[in-house]
């Protein structure tokens, strides 16, 4: 494992030389190392590049790591990972991705992840993305996440992308049965000429299902972001989608939240707020002795924490 790979793994998956538990490390489209555990089995997918991760019913408190690294230009990685989570399991899945290019060629990762959450299971899905390297080649990450939640399942997605990814196109869909919940916390910072698009499509099919999607983002430099979010309520359910964006420099943000209520007991809310940092916030921090630039940095970092 080279230094670039180690750096990326440390940033995106808190790698400190080893992973405790089940893991699969993917580097430049190939499996660098893998380990299954008693309750979490990782196998090679037979019909496409990727993995099948099977988590036994009632597995509690374990973490599985499936980070992917692209460490050089000219790599266009495509991977399909399926996660089958057994009934009443309660696990954490860490799937960070880092793309690095030191040359003129693009480095690209497309991860297509499907989650099948069994009855009563709980998953915390952590996904951190980063682009590094000084090459002219563009760093691109395009994740697709499709989640299917059975009765009472809960999926919490914690996604973060703070720097270096030239373009990202995220597509997340979820279909929820009764009593299932999806919670999304997305944090995004773009700068320079970067572009990020994020698109959520959540179908609340079951009675008492719920979605809470919150995206916080900062668009600096000349960067541009697009936020789409659609919640479809087909039963008595609750849905909330929120896009909260800060503009700095010449950043642009387009937010298009949408609600489709198809049942009279569906209760859906959307919020979108886009604007500069509130002047009062800068003033307060400056009265504490911070310069304007320091204050801006603290406010943004707090906002994206």
């Amino acid at each position: 494992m080279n230094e670039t790979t180690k750096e990326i793994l440390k940033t995106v998956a808190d790698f400190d030389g080893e992973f405790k538990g089940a893991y699969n490390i993917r580097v430049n489209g190939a499996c660098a190392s893998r380990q299954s555990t008693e309750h979490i089995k990782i196998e090679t997918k037979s019909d496409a590049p990727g993995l099948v991760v099977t988590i036994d019913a009632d597995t509690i408190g374990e973490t599985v790591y499936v980070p992917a690294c692209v460490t050089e230009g000219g790599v266009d990685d495509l991977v399909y990972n399926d996660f089958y989570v057994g009934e009443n399991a309660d696990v954490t899945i860490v799937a960070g991705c880092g793309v690095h290019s030191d040359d003129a060629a693009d480095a690209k990762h497309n991860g297509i992840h499907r989650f099948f959450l069994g009855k009563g299971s709980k998953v915390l899905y952590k996904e951190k993305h980063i682009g590094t390297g000084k090459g002219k080649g563009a760093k691109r990450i395009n994740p697709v996440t499709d989640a299917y939640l059975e009765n009472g399942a809960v999926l919490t997605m914690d996604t973060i992308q703070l720097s270096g990814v030239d373009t990202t196109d995220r597509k997340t869909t979820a279909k929820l049965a009764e009593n299932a919940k999806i919670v999304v916390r997305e944090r995004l910072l773009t700068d320079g000429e970067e572009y990020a698009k994020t698109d959520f499509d959540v179908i609340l099919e079951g009675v008492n299902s719920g979605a809470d999607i919150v995206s916080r983002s900062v668009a600096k430099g000349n960067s541009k972001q697009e936020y789409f979010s659609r919640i479809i309520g087909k039963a008595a359910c609750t849905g909330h989608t929120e896009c909260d964006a800060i503009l700095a420099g010449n950043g642009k943000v387009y937010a298009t939240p949408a609600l489709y209520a198809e049942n009279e007991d569906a209760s859906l809310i959307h919020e979108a707020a886009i604007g500069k940092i509130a002047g009062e916030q800068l003033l307060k921090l400056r009265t504490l002795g911070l310069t304007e630039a320091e204050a801006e940095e603290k406010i943004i970092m707090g906002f994206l924490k």
Partner: protein
Amino acid sequence: MLELRNISWNVPGGKEVLKDINLIIPDGKLVVITGPNGSGKTTLAKIIAGIVEPTSGSIFLDGEDITGLNITERAKKGISFAFQQPVRFKGITVRDLLELSAGKELNQAELCDLLGKVGLCTRDYIDREVNAALSGGEIKRIEIATVLARGTSYSVFDEPEAGIDLWSFTGLIKVFEELKKKNHGTQVIISHQERIINIADEVVVIADGVVRNTGAKEKILPTLLASDKTVGGCPVEMRGAK
């Protein structure tokens, strides 16, 4: 010593709010500024902190003209300001804000000490965000704690008692008395409260944009309580005007 010389301020393109204010705030003294709503007290405090630029006049700190210094520079000179309407932040916790105020990391004991002074239990508040979920009284206490955390020689509190319940009042008064003792701190407190005026070394009454009266509380307090000229509304000649 903080000195305001001939300070005036106009609403941009509008009325004159402060008219030729002259004030001296001696070292180690607690000065309470009081006066009717809208008389210009907050504006004056913001002029001291550098948030509002006076239309004319100058400000001296220990003999140095600081009129041209910006907010950050004045903060670094030792001026702290607790806002009448504290600012809320998404994602910044009480701990973050106090550490930014102190300019260093704070240990548990230091945090307990600061929050204890404003009557908040550290355990309940330290990791809470300073956001819209805090109640009016809670955020007001945290605002005061940010000034205490800085521990500078000059503190300006804009209506610190507003929204703070009666039970905590005694504790709050103690905070101001302690501040005065410690490093000979100089304090300006804007207040409408008799109990705060009572601990003042000097009271300044601002009305209609001028210093209406100034002196020891024994002299000023009776005039405040006796006066009924502060009844609001339109000037007589405007009442009933079409």
